[in-house]
């Protein structure tokens, strides 16, 4: 046993004993005594099967059989112990390592499983079950290698390829290639029949095919349950395809049936918990996750999600009633789940943005929401990640599950330039595209509309295309529209997901520019009617997908051709600008940044040359040029909070106070936790006679506990008085003077208020 192997043993030894997965075995080399027990399990005679496995554990002299029997009976720890002995007994047997790898796979330790499969292949490069094991590991991460490994099994050991065909079927169905998936299942079924394997898994996938084709009451489900009335996967497998196509409510219905027929199907309890949470049904979610934890304590998503639910006590839930004013856009209200520390500051801005998105999207997409929207903002990114996927460490900023939006809060990115306003704008568009189509909208279109709306109607106008995407366009990496979903679901190169976001956004921009907003609406309607992308393009736009791709390419060329052609020169100018900044040669910075801006004037994200140019003008005391540079930067969607605050200051100094107010409002969308934004904006609003909005700003300022609390109370008191609220004014004057009894201005205002 080498050190690494010892580590494997320790990990499992520390686990509980409950990991039980009903796995259908397809290995031709599975020992006959195990196969005999398996058959009882597959036909639903669970008690008999368990007795059979236990007998093998006691009677068998082969530790390989004892290990597999222990695993099948749900004793992962016992199985691990037997594998440790078996590997000493049969050090050159690739099967031992493969079966041990399967145990690790079942207990969610994929990297350890992969190592064992690799070792098995080193011993026997043609050992098909080990290759299939690698395919399963890849499939758990939606990796393209799934196909590669599975095809290798099919090519090299076609007779042992049931599992490989089923994996390919799953992958095809995940990609929406229903016919291809169905064919793979049929190939698997032929082998199942030939070798007298259990067809349960294949039947469950057949039911999934029916579901994806719109048949919810599949005869395959009945056939599976006829073979084994307690086979919960007959429902849970199709439910999985509802989940990945974001039809969470339908998935919950099926998962409830799954645990009804198989109460200890812990994976279904996990899925139920996660999906009930997506529907904001927190108590039910917690119940199912607790059951899942009892049965499968190895599951990181279960543990993480239960911890997240516990942390909800640190959040407040703020309900906002529907707007029923005559003539207003229909709005079913909203429910905001915000962290206790952040809520007093950000609630008004979040609510305002939610209401604005509802008004905007209702009009633009002709769809009225049927339920209140739930919006959750998480100051801890890992909490948001767990909320999204059950696991920390995802690279997303926001996610939408129908009527529920979850995203990072401004506090999560207090040290960076996270434009939370745009993220919320983006996610709220998903609420509409998902609900208007009963969640049938393909991923690319939903993302495309969200990105397009960010660029056109959101709080941060302008296209924001990262440099690697420009490079990808230059390299011809855009996909045909009918295959665009693949770029999101199964990326084949680094950055493909972000490239796909941008392609989707540009595609929607193109549709809107050529066919009008009605074109986007018509496509949405087609998706709602169950059409795929090719059908939707033809029906809504009266154009073939091939022609669409050709015309879209021309559009991209027309819009971005010059920028793309200048890509290298632009990168060079950016590098020269940075070099000049390092050398503090401000005249050179101004010249080089101007060059970079000319080559790509829309680039306002991190590293934008506008910032360098503005700084150069500031250093050179060219205030007017600094202001005009920052105005152009802002106009094109620049949002660096320091740059905007600097712009607000220079506009104020130039008596352009209305413009300064607008700039400060922009800063709220990126840095609402900075005290100076609220104090400055409150002052401007109060001076402009907008006392009610000034009250909002000063309340946010107070909630941020600034250094000078007496001053913050005094400002709020002034705003209350201007808004006609003497009671509020008196209260905050008293708080100001409680801190600073000799504060002259507050003393004088108090006398004015109480006399």
């Amino acid at each position, binding site marked *: 046993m080498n050190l690494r192997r010892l580590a494997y043993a320790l990990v499992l030894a520390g686990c509980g004993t409950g990991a039980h997965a009903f796995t259908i075995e397809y290995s031709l080399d599975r020992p006959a005594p195990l196969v005999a027990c398996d058959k009882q399990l597959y036909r639903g005679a669970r008690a008999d099967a368990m007795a059979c496995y236990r007998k093998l554990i006691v009677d068998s002299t082969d530790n390989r059989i004892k290990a597999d029997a222990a695993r099948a009976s749900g004793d992962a720890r016992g199985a691990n112990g037997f594998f440790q002995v078996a590997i000493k007994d049969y050090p050159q047997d690739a099967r031992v390592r493969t079966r041990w790898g399967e145990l690790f796979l079942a207990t969610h330790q994929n990297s350890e499983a992969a190592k064992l499969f690799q070792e098995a292949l080193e011993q026997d490069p043609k050992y098909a079950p080990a290759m299939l094991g690698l395919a399963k590991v890849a499939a758990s991460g939606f990796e393209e290698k799934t196909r590669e490994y599975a095809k290798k099994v099919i090519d090299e050991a076609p007779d042992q390829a049931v599992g490989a065909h089923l994996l390919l079927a799953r992958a095809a169905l995940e990609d929406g290639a229903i016919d291809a998936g169905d064919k793979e299942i049929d190939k698997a079924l032929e082998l199942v029949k030939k070798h007298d394997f259990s067809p349960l898994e294949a039947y469950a996938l057949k039911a999934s095919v029916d579901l994806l084709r719109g048949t919810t009451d599949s005869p395959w489900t009945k056939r599976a349950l006829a073979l084994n009335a307690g086979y919960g996967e007959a429902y849970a497998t199709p439910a999985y395809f509802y989940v990945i196509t974001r039809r969470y409510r339908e998935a919950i219905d099926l998962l409830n049936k799954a645990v009804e027929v198989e109460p200890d199907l812990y994976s279904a309890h996990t899925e139920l918990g996660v999906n009930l949470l997506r529907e904001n049904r927190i108590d039910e979610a917690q119940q199912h996750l607790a059951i899942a934890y009892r049965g499968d304590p190895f599951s990181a998503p279960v543990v993480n999600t239960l911890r997240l639910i516990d942390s909800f006590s640190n959040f407040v839930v703020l309900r906002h009633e529907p707007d029923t004013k005559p003539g207003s856009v229909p709005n079913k209200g909203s429910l905001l789940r915000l962290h206790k520390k952040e809520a007093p500051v950000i609630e008004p801005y979040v609510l305002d943005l939610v209401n604005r998105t509802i008004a905007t999207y209702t009009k633009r997409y002709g769809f009225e929401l049927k339920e209140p929207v739930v919006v959750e903002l998480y100051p801890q990114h890992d909490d948001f990640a767990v909320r999204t996927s059950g696991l920390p460490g995802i690279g997303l900023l926001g996610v939408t599950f129908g009527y529920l939006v979850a995203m990072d809060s401004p506090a999560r990115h207090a*040290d960076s330039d996270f434009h939370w306003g745009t993220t919320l704008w983006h996610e709220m568009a998903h609420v509409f595209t998902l609900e208007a189509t009963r969640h049938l909208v393909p991923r690319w279109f939903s993302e495309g509309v969200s990105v397009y709306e960010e660029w056109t109607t959101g709080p941060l106008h302008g296209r924001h295309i990262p440099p690697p995407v420009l490079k990808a366009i230059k390299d011809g990496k855009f996909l045909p529209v009918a295959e665009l979903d693949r770029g999101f679901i199964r990326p084949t190169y680094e950055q493909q997901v972000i490239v796909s976001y941008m392609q989707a956004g540009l595609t929607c921009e193109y549709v809107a520019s050529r066919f009008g907003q009605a074109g986007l609406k018509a496509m949405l309607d087609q998706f709602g009617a169950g059409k795929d992308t090719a059908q939707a393009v033809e029906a809504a736009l009266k154009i073939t997908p091939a022609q669409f791709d050709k015309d879209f390419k021309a559009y991209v060329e027309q819009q971005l051709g010059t920028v793309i052609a200048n890509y290298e020169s632009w990168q060079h100018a950016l590098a020269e600008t940075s070099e000049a900044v390092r050398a503090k040669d401000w005249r050179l910075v101004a010249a080089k940044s101007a060059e970079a801006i000319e080559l790509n004037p829309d680039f306002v994200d991190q590293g934008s040359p506008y910032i360098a140019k503005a700084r150069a003008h500031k250093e050179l005391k060219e205030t007017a040029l600094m202001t005009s540079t920052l105005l152009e930067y802002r106009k094109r969607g620049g949002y660096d909070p320091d740059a905007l605050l600097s712009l607000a200051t220079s506009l104020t100094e130039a008596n352009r106070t209305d413009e300064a107010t607008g700039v400060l409002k922009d800063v709220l969308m990126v840095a609402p936790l900075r005290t100076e934004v609220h104090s400055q904006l409150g002052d401007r609003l109060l001076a402009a006679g907008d006392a009610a909005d000034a009250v909002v700003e000063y309340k946010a300022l107070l909630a941020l506990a600034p*250094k*000078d*609390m*007496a001053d913050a109370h005094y400002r709020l008191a002034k705003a209350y008085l201007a808004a006609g609220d003497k009671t509020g004014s*008196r*209260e905050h004057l*008293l708080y100001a*003077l*409680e*801190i*600073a*009894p*000799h*504060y*002259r201005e507050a*003393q*004088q205002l*108090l*006398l004015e208020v*109480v006399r």
Partner: protein
Amino acid sequence: MSARTHLAVLAALGAVFAAPARADLYYLVVGGLGGEAKYQEQFDKDTAAVAAVARRTAGNDHVVVLQGESATRAALVKAFDSLRTRTKPADSLAVVLIGHGSFDGDTYKFNLPGPDIDGGELKKLLGGVPARTQLVVNATSASGAVLDSWVADGRTVITATRSGFERNATRFAEVFAAALTDGAADINKNGVITAQEAFDYASRAVADSYKDKGALATEHPQLKGGGAARFMVARLGAAPSAPANPEVAALTTERERLDGEIEALKERREQMAPDAYLDQLQKLLVQLAEVQGKIDAAQGKPQ
């Protein structure tokens, strides 16, 4: 100490108005050896800034400033000798050390032209000054090494670093100097900056400065000792003179009485219903505002 208790102590003792009139404040400001031009320039600038405030607050003849080549160990010892003979027990002494410090795991040293001076010697020199109320602001690197050993009855110690092992050059002196002239540091808006207010302002500014630069903070300012809230380190305006007008003198006494009542009321806040507390607070604050208005009118100040 909660903010509320801190404020209560601050005003209940009436130090902010009364203390300077009863006793003298002395300042000793030392700008140490920079070693490199950029540090020397910064230390000189910080020393000059603190010295200017000290002169305005305590008066020219109560301030000793040592910097540059003249800031030697011998000169420092001599300055302490002078303070030993000049100050009375009722006086206050503020010592501000700016520059580099070092710590070898055992001994702290303040870097000066010529021989350095170590923490033990400085402690002895401080102990020899009769002024019972002392504030030492050691803004040097590694200054945290002397925090515990220098603090004493009547002596409050502020250091730029948490321990002797924070050895990088500090930013504390610069922001501490800024605190002494920035009205934003005057949290209770009485025109006077206390050691506590200056420390709060400076420590926040240090933390913000590292955060803004995205750098890991290499200094964590510390304060130890009970007198910071009562120790005036700077006056934002001109020093008030004793009122010659008997009417103003009476009003000033009345104002001090109201200050005391307000503080006593704040102490009782937790035992009172919120509305009752605010009603009583309002009554006292209105009286205070009216008295202040009369003082201002009598002194010809605009109201």
